Structures are given as structure tokens and as C-alpha cells.
């Protein structure tokens, strides 16, 4: 199976310390109010008879198998890497149009305040390049996050996946399941927060109306021009009518 980097998270271990968020911000120089990762917490169930318990759900870009953000990018500036399954952003090609941001059901993307291009978690590509784990994984004091190739039982995440295939769950919106690559062990906590993936209006208009219309107009014009050319080649002696001035052949 192809390499697919992912995470297996034990939400039960998360103590909401926000260490992963701080480490990420520093490691990736994420500016201002932008965050590449998060910890979601649900409402405490005070009605329950048993002792109330809060589950914290750490997360970040899910590097989905069916990424709607990639579908919303007209230039391929964001794409799913074939080498490791991470959804990456080409900052040189991205113009910061923001279509991918709207298309993500997890709100995992944002427009980098400084660079003004799309930004999100890439599992710390710069740290991985030198053999380190993502900053959020390294820094987690309770080791709630396991990282690695989900298809390789030798990696920390792959090992957990192999051990508990049936128990691991994805957090998805049923109306647009993007098949994310972050799995949760046991009780994942809040599950209802992902929104339905939404394509921006301009992109929908392009895809459904402008694209076919332009193809038809250019195609028909091309056919028309070719037909004229064909006629020109076949009807060689189609002479114009004689002019009043009595000079023929002026049109040749």
C-alpha cells in the first residue's frame, strides 16, 4: 500500500494543555491569530449520573484521501502528495484566492496573515526533512498523538492502526465524507463540528456554467473556421460576381 502519513490520536489522553498548539506556532512561524492545529472540547454532561468527564479532541489538517480543498483549487497549487499522502500547498503558485479555505469541512485552512496565501498543517515538512516528528507530536506531554505511515505497522501510528483497526474512528461530516487520515482511539469527544464541504460560488459558476459555455463557444468557432477552410480548399473556383467597374479578379 502507498505511504500515507497520518495520526492516530487517543483523545482520552489529552489534557487540553495547548502545548501542541504553541509548539506548532513556533515551529512553523504561524503568524498572529492563525493556528494550524486545535483542541476541541465538547460540553460537559452535567446531567449524567456517573462522574462528569470532558474529552478533549486534538486535531489539525486531516490530509484527507478525498480532499475537497484540492478540488476547489483551480491551479493545482494545493495537491495531495503522491509520495506520502500529505496535502501540500505550493506557496509560489497559490495566489491566496481562498477557495480551498471555504471548501475544507474542518476549517483546517486559513489565509496566512503575513504571506497572504493559503496555509495549514503539513505535518511539519521542515522538521520531517531533518528526521524529526511533527512539533505537536514531539511536544505532547501525554503522548496523545501518534504519527507515521498509517499503512506501515512499524511506524507509531501504523502500529496503533494495525492493533485497533475496528476501534479507530474518523471525525467526519456525513454529508461530505472526505476520508480523513487522522483517526481517534476510544471516545473521540465532540464529533458534530465538521461542516459540510462547500465549494465557493465563483468556482461552481466556473465549473458548471463558464467552463462548458467557453468550450462550446471556442469549439463551435473552431469548427466554423475549419469548415470555412474546408470549403475554401474544395471550392477553388468560387469567383466573386463581376464588379460594376468591369474589373474582374480584383478579389483574388
Amino acid at each position, binding site marked *: 500500500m502507498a505511504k500515507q502519513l497520518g495520526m492516530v490520536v487517543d483523545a482520552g489522553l489529552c489534557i487540553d494543555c495547548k502545548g501542541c498548539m504553541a509548539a506548532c506556532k513556533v515551529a512553523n512561524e504561524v503568524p498572529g491569530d492563525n493556528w494550524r492545529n486545535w483542541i476541541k472540547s465538547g460540553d460537559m454532561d452535567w446531567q449524567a449520573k456517573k462522574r462528569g468527564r470532558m474529552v478533549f479532541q486534538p486535531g489539525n489538517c486531516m490530509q484527507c484521501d478525498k480532499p475537497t480543498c484540492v*478540488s476547489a*483549487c*483551480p*491551479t*493545482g*497549487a494545493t495537491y495531495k502528495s503522491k509520495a506520502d499522502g500529505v496535502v501540500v500547498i*505550493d*506557496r*509560489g*503558485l497559490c*495566489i*491566496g*484566492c*481562498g*477557495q480551498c*479555505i471555504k471548501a475544507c469541512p474542518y476549517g483546517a485552512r*486559513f*489565509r496566512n496573515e503575513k*504571506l*497572504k*496565501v493559503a496555509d495549514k498543517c503539513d505535518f511539519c515538512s521542515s522538521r520531517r526533512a531533518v528526521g524529526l516528528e511533527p512539533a505537536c507530536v514531539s511536544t505532547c506531554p501525554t503522548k496523545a498523538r501518534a504519527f507515521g505511515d498509517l499503512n506501515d505497522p512499524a511506524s507509531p501510528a501504523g502500529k496503533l492502526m494495525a492493533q485497533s483497526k475496528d476501534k479507530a474512528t474518523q471525525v467526519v461530516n456525513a454529508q461530505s465524507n472526505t476520508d480523513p487520515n487522522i483517526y481517534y482511539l476510544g471516545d473521540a469527544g465532540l464529533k458534530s463540528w465538521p461542516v459540510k464541504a462547500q465549494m*465557493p*460560488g*465563483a*468556482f461552481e*459558476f*466556473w*465549473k458548471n456554467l*463558464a*467552463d462548458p*459555455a*467557453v*468550450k462550446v*463557444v*471556442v469549439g463551435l*468557432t*473552431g469548427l*466554423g*473556421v475549419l469548415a*470555412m*477552410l474546408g*470549403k*475554401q480548399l474544395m*471550392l477553388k473556383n*468560387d*469567383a*466573386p*460576381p463581376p*464588379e*460594376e*467597374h468591369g*474589373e474582374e479578379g*480584383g*478579389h*483574388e
Partner: protein
Amino acid sequence: MSSPKMIQRHTRAGIFIHWFNAACWFFLLFTGLALIQNPELNPLGAWYPKAVRAVFGGGANLLVAHWLVALIWLAVWVVYLFWGMSRFVAPFLNSTFSLEPNRDIQWMIKKNLQMTLGYKMMAKLVKPLGYDGHLPPQEYYNAGQKLAAQGIIMGALVLIGTGFIMLFSKYFFSAADTWLVQWSMTVHFIAAGVTTALLMVHIYMAAISKEERPAFISMFTGTVPAEYAKHHHQLWYEELEEK
């Protein structure tokens, strides 16, 4: 006709700006097409952006090449517009944006019929209806050229406007304003499509159809045979005669 009488149709500046323009449009069209890479949009299939990006060393370089040539194109045009405003530009706009409905609608219909049917069919089918086979006399530009020029000028303005919005997105736009960038991409694509269709007709008429061959040659030499001018642009010819 060994050495027909020739008359001046294009200045050197006009010839230069025409071919400069043509080269830039081609470059921008084909690099622009390659900037689209999405299975739901790919106008020519996935191979095209892949191949062109390989030539330019990646999509980011391709994008820079696209807007660099666009800026050079625009800069040259701005110089041309200022330098030639009274001599070339104003007269060009004056004549391309002045249509005489009665004469020019007739011309458009008859010319298109004649081109589709051919002169012989035209004589057979349309003559009984009272049409003698002659087109209404035309000015320096015929009605088709005027309409194409209007479309291309307006298309170019839309391309420039939306192009700048996309170029500036990374520098001056806030996240709340990106809807404008999104619509600019869509509108840029539409304007490029419409102008491409018009340019296909322009290229066919000028470079491929036999009738306008002298006009094509004049885009290199600057001159057309007086006979050609008389038959294709009678009003212009008469104006020259009067001078």
C-alpha cells in the same frame, strides 16, 4: 498586373504593435491555459498543464512568466497609447467604435451568407430575393473587423482588470476580500475564452482566407494594392482619392 498601384495601410508602429501584441497574446493564452490544473476544469486535458509546467520548471515559475509577460505587454501598450494617442489610437478607436447600423448590419449578414454559401450558391439562392451580390461599401475597417476589435478591446480591459486583482491578491488583499479574487479567476477565464474565439475568426479571415490575403501581406509590408482597397474598403479608398 505586374506592378499594381500600392497604397499605405499600416505604419511601422502599427505593424510593430500588431505583431508584438500577437506574440504576447499567444504566450499569455498558452501559459494561462496551463495555469489551470483541476480535473473538473482542464480545458485541454491533464497532460497540457503538466507538459507546460515541466518546460517552465514548475507551476510557480509558470505563474511568474505569465504575469511578467502580461506586465511587459501592458507597459509597451501604455507607451504606445501615450505616444500614438492622436496619431494612431484615437483614429483607431474612432473608426472601430463607429458603426452605421443600416449599412453594417446588412454587410454582416450578407458577408456571412456569402462566406458560408459561396458566391455561386449565393447567386442562386439569394438573388431571387432581390440581392445583387454586392456588399455595402466599407470604411478603413469593415463591420466585422470593427465588431471583433470592440470585443477584443473590451475583453482585454476585463483581462487586465481581473489580472491585476489576481496579481495583487497576495500583496494587498485581506481574507475578507478574496471573493473578488475568486470571481476574477472565473471572469478572466471567460474573457480569455471569448477573445480567443474572436481571435480565431480574426486569424482565419486575415491569414487563411484568400480574400483578405492582401491585408495579411500588408501587416508585413504596410501597403495594399489600390484595387484591393477599392473593393474591400471602398469608403476609405474614396476618402484617400479625395485628398
